[in-house]
């Protein structure tokens, strides 16, 4: 694999953009980071870490929650399936609803959720419910 110059790299990335294509909310599992990234709007965002699992994305324009990053997915799924085996039935055709992952995190926590974090999780759950997104659950079933 060749190293590309910064100019060539930028040209390659920008060539992949189709400005005519409308943005769709999306959740994707990234093997390289063992993480799930969820984005509801195409705004620029800044991130704030909520806890060991979840980082929340806030719109730079409106400061509203517009997405999140769920880290350490395979380890989290293994722990959840141990504590809450019923989680397995939420994995359908190798995919799981994003909202189930957020709920599983809250319900499997051994600590009382800190008030501020609960509010953030509630916002994420509402956003995930509204978008009805699901994500590949390969890392949960392997």
């Amino acid at each position, binding site marked *: *694999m*060749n*190293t*590309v110059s*910064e100019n060539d*790299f*930028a*040209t*390659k*990335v*920008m060539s*992949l*953009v*189709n*400005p005519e*294509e409308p*943005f*769709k909310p*999306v959740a*994707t599992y*990234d*093997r*390289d*980071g*063992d*993480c799930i*990234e969820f*984005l509801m709007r*195409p*705004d*620029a*965002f*800044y*991130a*704030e*870490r909520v*806890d*060991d699992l979840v980082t929340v*994305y806030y719109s*730079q324009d409106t400061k509203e929650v517009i997405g999140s*990053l769920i880290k*350490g997915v395979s*380890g989290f799924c293994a722990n959840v399936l141990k504590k809450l085996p019923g989680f397995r039935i939420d994995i359908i055709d190798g995919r799981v609803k994003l909202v189930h992952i957020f709920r599983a995190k809250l319900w499997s926590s051994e600590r009382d959720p800190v008030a501020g974090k609960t509010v953030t999780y509630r916002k994420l759950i509402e956003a995930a419910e509204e978008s009805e997104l699901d994500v590949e659950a390969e890392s949960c079933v392997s």
Partner: protein
Amino acid sequence: MAKDSESRREGLLVQAVNPVDGKTCTVQISHARMQTVATRGLIHASECGYIVPAILRGPTAIFEGLRREEDEDQWGVGWRCYCGVPSCSYRKDGTKGPSYPGQVYLVFVNSDGVAYNWRWEKADEDNQKLPVGHADRFKRRLL
């Protein structure tokens, strides 16, 4: 932790500072990741195309070992976080805007040398070139 995979083999290599010897190393960005950010529009594609390589080449700090609050003490060993202050931000039409005050840009690289996530975060109030909470989030600072 991520293993060698198709996405690891298929991508582009860009130059980065190697915090171990101060020389240059390479970091990979997978085609899948580039495709993902491109579908999000010009803001995210521009951050990937212009800001990420600039941070990798000229970071204000590099941290290693992403901490977790629970178990798995070894999680994140070898994983690095490049931090920097971009000279600009990008708007929805792809044009440049001012950098976000009080924020830094972080690029996360796994132990295979793959950059898998990048984003703006709030800066430390005492040092605007470092991310908030840097003392607790990472195992050590390399640069």
